[in-house]
């Protein structure tokens, strides 16, 4: 049986990977086995009016309501609810100290505007010196983002947004406002964030894999937290889509340093223990962000999804979750970037397609170590629940690590 694939992206990396496997490209109306689609295509496919029903040999690269994790406001809402629920249960994970969550304090304090305006003001007053970052809930690539350090600036902005007759949508658009992490870890004096990839093949039970080969995205201008530079996005926003317009942008390295090299640098300068702790905390926050949306994501055995996690490390080596992208960029800016993204796609297909080589949603989705490639198992609740350790990817360090994550349960 020949495998067929369909895609609405003109990304060479997708097509090349599929063709390499001997899969045949077909149109959306044809009989496809694997659909690599943009989120919009996906949503219309899943919508009731489309009337499309997938059969057991079809898989697709998004969950129908992925926005529960990828929209900035919904992610925050879900994490807040997750923490509250755990707290109600009396779960130690939700333990607090000094009013902060001890183990689940991994997103900057965030409010949705205009809905939570009053709550924001209350929080703002506690520390009027601090800087906040405004981000439109539904946009990406750094668009529409700005920093504020005074309430008056926010008020002025909201007045203007309401007044502007040319852009009435501005008034309707909702924003998140988050505490700005003003003490990011710097290397060579520059701010960066991490782009990590996480593959989820099922939410209930949760099955997630983390890709080892992420990268750091560097700003092109030295970090400077002074007010004068508050509006300089080349200092504050790490998005490549922002930085590449900078005068200092270098297309040969694209401002991207591999995560392995970051790790080498941190281990060499700060020591192994703190570096390990940092990376364990990153895996920890990824798992809990996924568990936070687990109850609300529609279960659909046809779906898998690869998320692009944006994470900032502060100068105390604490990682902060900034956002989760459901369609991380597959565009390559440099040669190494191309290699990485090819590997990413290749490894994803290795995991989502059963050993038979033919997509089948009845498969138990337990992946052998060989098929993992550069992915590492983050969590597989099937394995956790059944203690089924043999012959699976959870061998070695990871079984310990996952066990550690659940030592409180």
């Amino acid at each position, binding site marked *: 049986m020949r495998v067929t694939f369909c895609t609405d992206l003109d990304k060479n990396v997708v097509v090349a990977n599929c063709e390499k496997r001997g899969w045949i490209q077909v149109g959306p109306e044809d009989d496809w086995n694997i659909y690599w689609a943009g989120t919009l295509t996906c949503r219309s496919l899943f919508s009731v009016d489309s009337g499309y029903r997938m059969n057991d040999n079809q898989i697709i690269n998004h969950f129908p309501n992925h926005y529960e994790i990828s929209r900035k406001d919904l992610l925050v809402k879900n994490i807040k609810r997750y923490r509250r629920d755990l707290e109600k249960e009396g779960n130690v994970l939700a333990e607090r100290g000094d009013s902060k969550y001890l183990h689940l304090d991994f997103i900057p304090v965030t409010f949705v505007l205009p809905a939570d305006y009053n709550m924001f003001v209350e929080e703002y007053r506690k520390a009027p010196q601090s800087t906040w970052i405004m981000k439109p809930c539904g946009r990406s690539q750094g668009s529409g983002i700005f920093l504020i350090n005074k309430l008056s600036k926010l008020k002025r902005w909201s007045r203007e947004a309401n007044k502007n007759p040319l852009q009435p949508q501005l008034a309707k658009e909702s924003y998140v406002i988050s505490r700005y992490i003003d003490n990011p870890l710097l290397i060579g004096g520059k701010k960066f964030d991490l782009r990590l990839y996480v593959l989820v093949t099922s939410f209930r039970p949760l099955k997630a894999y983390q890709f080892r080969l992420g990268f750091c995205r*560097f700003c092109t201008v030295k970090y400077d937290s002074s007010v004068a530079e508050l509006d300089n996005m080349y200092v504050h926003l790490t998005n490549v889509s922002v930085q590449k317009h900078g005068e200092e942008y*270098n297309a040969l390295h694209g*401002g*991207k340093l591999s995560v392995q090299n970051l790790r080498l640098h941190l281990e*060499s*300068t700060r020591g*192994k223990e703190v*570096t390990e702790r940092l990376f364990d905390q990153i895996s920890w926050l990824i798992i809990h962000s996924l568990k936070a949306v687990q109850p609300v994501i529609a279960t659909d055995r046809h779906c898998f999804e690869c998320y692009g996690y944006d994470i900032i490390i502060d100068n105390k080596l604490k990682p902060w979750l900034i956002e989760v992208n459901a369609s991380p960029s597959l565009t390559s800016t440099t040669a190494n970037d191309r290699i990485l993204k090819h590997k990413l796609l290749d490894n994803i297909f290795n995991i989502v397609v059963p050993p038979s080589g033919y997509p089948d949603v009845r498969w138990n989705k337990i992946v052998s170590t060989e098929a993992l490639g550069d992915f590492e198992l983050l969590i597989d609740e099937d394995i956790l629940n059944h203690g089924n350790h043999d012959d699976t990817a959870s061998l*070695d*360090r990871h079984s310990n690590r996952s066990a550690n994550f659940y030592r409180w349960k």
Partner: protein
Amino acid sequence: MEEIKDKSIHHTALRLCEDLKQNPTYKGLYTDVQKLVSSSNVKYEDFKESLSKSMKENGLEAELRNNVYHWVRSQNKDNLCYASFDSFFKKAQIQWEKRIHKSLNSMCSELGIHLARIRFTQDREELIEKWGELSNYDVDINKYRPVYSPKDFLEVLLNLKGPNYKHRGEEPTWDFSHIPIKVKDLSELRTLYSELSHGEAVMGMNTSRYMSSSYAAFEAERIALGERVVLSNHAPVAQEYLKKGCPPCLRKKMWTLVLGSEVKETHYHYYEKLKTHVLQYDLMVDKLIIKDIHLTASNDDQYFVFEDVLHQILLCFSRDAEILKQLSNKPGYMQVVLKGKPSTPENTLIFPPSGVIPFHGFTMYAAPFCYLFDDSVALYFTVRAFYLRYWFRLHRVCGHSQGILCLCLLFERLLQCYDPVLWHHFKKIHIPPIRVVFKWIMRAFSGHLPPEQLLYLWDLVLAYDSLEAIPLLAVVILIFRRDNLLRVTTLQNIEAVLADLSSIAVMSMLQMALSKE
């Protein structure tokens, strides 16, 4: 007989003492000993015993021992294996330097600039302001070209006509076989790198996808041992420790210990003086340095984050007269008069004060160290120590067993003996294999291997106090890719086969090469 021996020990001790006193850290050490002597632990009645006991206890003994160790290492730097060709190589090196100087001068006259001048105030102020972000220092380097590239230097080496040189027909010089220097053979290398050839567990074997639990346990064990080594503060023990490769978290300390490049307050002052010199004088090498960083580290996704600190340390490096002083066989240097000044001794400057003229890729001798250090001064002194012990021999003509010529010869002999088929393939397609690997050797693989792997290789350089692992690795890489190499016949395709070294696992490949089947 005994008497003579006694006497010579006595002489050595005297020389040692004299030299130690010249050491910048001597004053601190001496003060510490004085303090100790005046403490109640040291008794007048039992002076010698009680002093040496308390020195042991508070670590001064280790420090003194390390000083002796570094002194001894600095003594046998000049052991030329072939004294008879010494003068030949010296002459060749002088000629090469003359060529470099000439090309510097002609670049200057082409561009209408001077080798050295007092820095304009405005320029100085900009430098001061941008010292932390020198990649943004506004200077036009477009017109500057690297003085020479590894390729040019290889040409010079290949054209050396040794004392035994016989013209061999039409073919242009193909290899170094006419240079009559003996290099180690495989079994001698096995003896030198005996820890590797015995196939014991070493660091850097975790390149298989999964961090196996046995490797994690091994690494933990190595770290525990390494921490004790660091605590003991004994340089020779640290050197021994490096033979199995160093866990990244201990490398900075281990390397500093072996090289004796710990920084004290005096080093900060010294570095500050170098910086002042940079601010005061506008030297033409500054542009060459900046140009080289722009051409290399700034464009490299492994090193771009370090471009600013590289500017700082390499500019300071050029001003460091200690480098010129410590180089055995001082390079020929230029004396230049500051622009617009009368030619008096006060206005005359050794150009550059370090005597080192950078070539294309010089930055890569320093870049990998940036992974280890946050502090630019500590970074500087380790880079300098490494340069003075190893790297300087990679860009000069000399017959030293650690020099570039011997390393090239070693490469050729090893390839010939390991894989005659591949050697003949190169011969058949008229491409000297050394041409393919020369840049790896001249840069000690910096910029070619990913930093993690590169640093393991450099662990071995320090551990065995030898660069011979470098040509050995070059041979092994060729052999690993032999099937693909045998399939291609043009230089371009050969280079394509060898372009990507990201999958090379240094330690296991060297181990494989050295182990007896």
